[in-house]
């Protein structure tokens, strides 16, 4: 597929309006990393398995490697950079060992944001089943999410 034709995609990225002339089929992941300069969103597989590229569209977690730019048009997109640096989950992931190598961490935190406040352990496990982590065995991630409310 040639990514040559031009059209505008506009969305609210981390609270700020963006208007970009990108191909409508360009992956949202690439739009964020290349056109918006936000490299906190990671690519782990390009097939929607690992969840490292998770972002929120209108608050809903999606794999940005499987989202065409056109589908972000008119939405609110939140990436890890949009949480600032003092979100309760960010702090908890540092304090409780939820981040080791860190490559899955942005996607993991955004999936955790979408769980809402005080999720049960079961809800956490189900809600994070689309985010692979190879370092932690997940336990420290559960602890981070549960402790983030303390």
């Amino acid at each position, binding site marked *: 597929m*040639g*990514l040559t034709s031009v059209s505008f995609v506009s969305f609210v990225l981390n609270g700020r309006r963006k208007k970009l002339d990108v191909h409508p089929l360009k992956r949202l992941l690439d739009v964020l*990393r290349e056109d918006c300069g*936000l*490299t*906190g*969103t*990671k*690519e*782990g*597989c*390009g*097939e929607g*398995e*690992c969840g*490292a590229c998770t972002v929120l569209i209108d608050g809903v977690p999606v794999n940005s490697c499987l989202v065409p730019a056109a589908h972000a048009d008119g939405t609110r997109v939140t*990436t*890890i*950079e949009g*949480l*600032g*640096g003092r979100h309760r*989950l*960010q*702090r908890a*992931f*540092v*304090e*409780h*060992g939820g*981040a*080791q*190598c*860190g*490559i*899955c*961490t*942005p996607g993991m*935190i955004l999936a955790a944001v979408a769980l809402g406040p005080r999720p049960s352990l079961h809800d*956490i*496990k*189900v809600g*994070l*089943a*689309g*985010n*692979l*982590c*190879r*370092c*932690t*065995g*997940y*336990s*420290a*991630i*559960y602890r981070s999410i549960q402790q983030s409310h303390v």
Partner: protein
Amino acid sequence: MSSRARKAVGRNVLRKEGHDKVTGAARYIDDLTFPGLLHARTIRSTIPAGEIVKVRFKGDRAGFTLVDHHDIPGRNIVALIDEDQPCLAERKIRHVAEPILLLVHEDREKLRAADVQIEYRPSTPNYDPERSAITFKKIAIDKGDLDAGFAAADVIVEGEYRTGLQEQLYIETNGVIAVPGSSVAGAAGGITVYGSMQCPYYVHRALVILLGLPAGKVRVIQTETGGGFGGKEEYPSMMAGHAALAALKTGRPVKLVYDRVEDMLATTKRHPSIVRHRTGVTRDGRLTAIDIDAVLDGGAYATLSAVVLSRGMIHAAGPYRCDHIRIRGRATMTNTPPNGAFRGFGAPQTQFAAEVHMDRIAERLGLDPVRVREINALRPGDTTATGQRLGKDSSALQVLREAVTRTGFRKRRRALAGTNRGIGLSLFFHGSGFTGAGEVKLAAKASLALTHKGARIHVASTEIGQGTRTMLAQIVADALGVRYDDVDVNAADTGEVPDSGPTVASRTCMIVGRILERCAEEMRARLGRLTPRQYLRAFGPLVITKQYERPAGMVWDDTVYKGDAYGSYGWGCDVVEVEVDRDTYEVRPTAFTTVHEIGKAIHPMLAVGQIEGGSAQGLGYAILEDVVMRDGRMANATLTNYIIPTSLDTPPMQVVLLENPYPHGPSGAKGVGEMPIDGPAPAVINALRHAGFDLREIPATPERVMLTSSVESTQRTPRTPRKSQAWV
């Protein structure tokens, strides 16, 4: 100098780069770009064995640069142990996905669409490691008199055990960027390589040899690394060579980042193994003779197979006392992509065999699995297979008893008998640091530079998720008497740091940590009563560099494989409960407890993180992870089809840390990184045996479990529903 600083060791201080990792600010290799950046794509062989006849580039070559072996100014090898592996194939092909040439272009889409066709003259491949004509390495370990040992036995138990390939599956794929110019003071020309890697000086040495450059013109800088597990130990040397050749030919920066499929198809994996045990044992359960024969499948080139085999063989008899031991091991060549380093490094394979065999011995004698291990576990004063006399820092019995008590093992075993559930355990050990004389030969160096507030650590040891920066800073802070926050860590940049050795072999804490501790002790003495600021003002810069010193009395003879194989060992015991679905043969771990004795936990939370993560990776190895090879090629090289555990596959984990200090480790610490992956696989298989399924091979896929159960399953009761999957 403040001595009032709160001790950092033993405390869960915040990890150094934690904030950057949770905010997205941490920069991994694919997050970096350079002006004029070009992209590279590797063209690889599609046959397992043969010769290249012709290479044809089809279509418009405008904007493309082609790099092949003719562009190599130095020697066409990936320098490691043997010199058998070319950086770019010249004529001969020994495996699928062997790199032949590089295409370079500024547009990734054009690069992807480019069509290069290669004509081959194929030859017959060999995939059987036992029938290989090429042996990379043989190892023989002999202790006592094997015949006498068997003569003293009442019973002889034999068994054959097999393990498969395993992919490291770091979530960040391999990647490097080569930039022309080394920017090292006084060195014009040259090359700088940034990348995701464990061992900057391995890459440095490989580049010097490949490019024929003086050491000062090659600079290697590790970027934030999204997991390694051994998979970024030796392979980055190959990739760095490719990117560097392309950068030198084009005169521009070149990025080479693999996608997941290429990473899985081409890079190293854990060696498959076939291990045969023949064991003499008395009726009351004492081991009298251990005879082990092992083969590791090395793949097409030697890579690190010799040392993987070495560690595997030294751990092959398990943590058990026996006077008469014979171990024969070999690593052989097959026409598959080369296997290499992976957490555990041979020990998970051989201890899998030893621990499954041990349960079969117990069963044969009518003993319970705990009792047979209690009788034979190595104690302080005992000697290992290599004749190493163990010190007081040996804890096999302690970890075993702790695990048995914590889990109520014997009671659970009785309670689960006859159900579709089972409980099993494994007892294991893992040597810290390089094997034998390895640390002496390596002669690792580390430096500490005084800063206005404290000190800066200069080591080539890399942070790959395990917490290197944090843990080393804790050790230095306490030894120097400053706050943890006042110790910082230089980038692992060969232009700035000494060679503290590779970040492998569970050596970073015990070996490099101890060197830094000695640096800090000397710095503290030099400072006397002065603060760092006062010292710098009065005397100028202060940098202390120290080298590894072998603890007194350590002896190793590489020619006969005798002596002190490792400075110290960690000890572990895993207990796992599994549930088998009688209709689908799916194995689900439902509870997992592990006891690890690691000397001293410098940062308990990081140590637990290593143990939980390594255990989960071990459970994946045991149950799920199956590399399917078809005609020498990984047939399931996607994350959809190579299955690693998700949150729903990983059981709750109970981790118990015991501390039995090693006198020559920093604050008594031993290694911890690898050991957690030694135990889960045999514990799972032993639990399956308890549930009535006799497996001798991993992974314990449902397809394999099915073949061990001859009884038609639907008639079997009781059955436990899987709430998450069965909808009623």
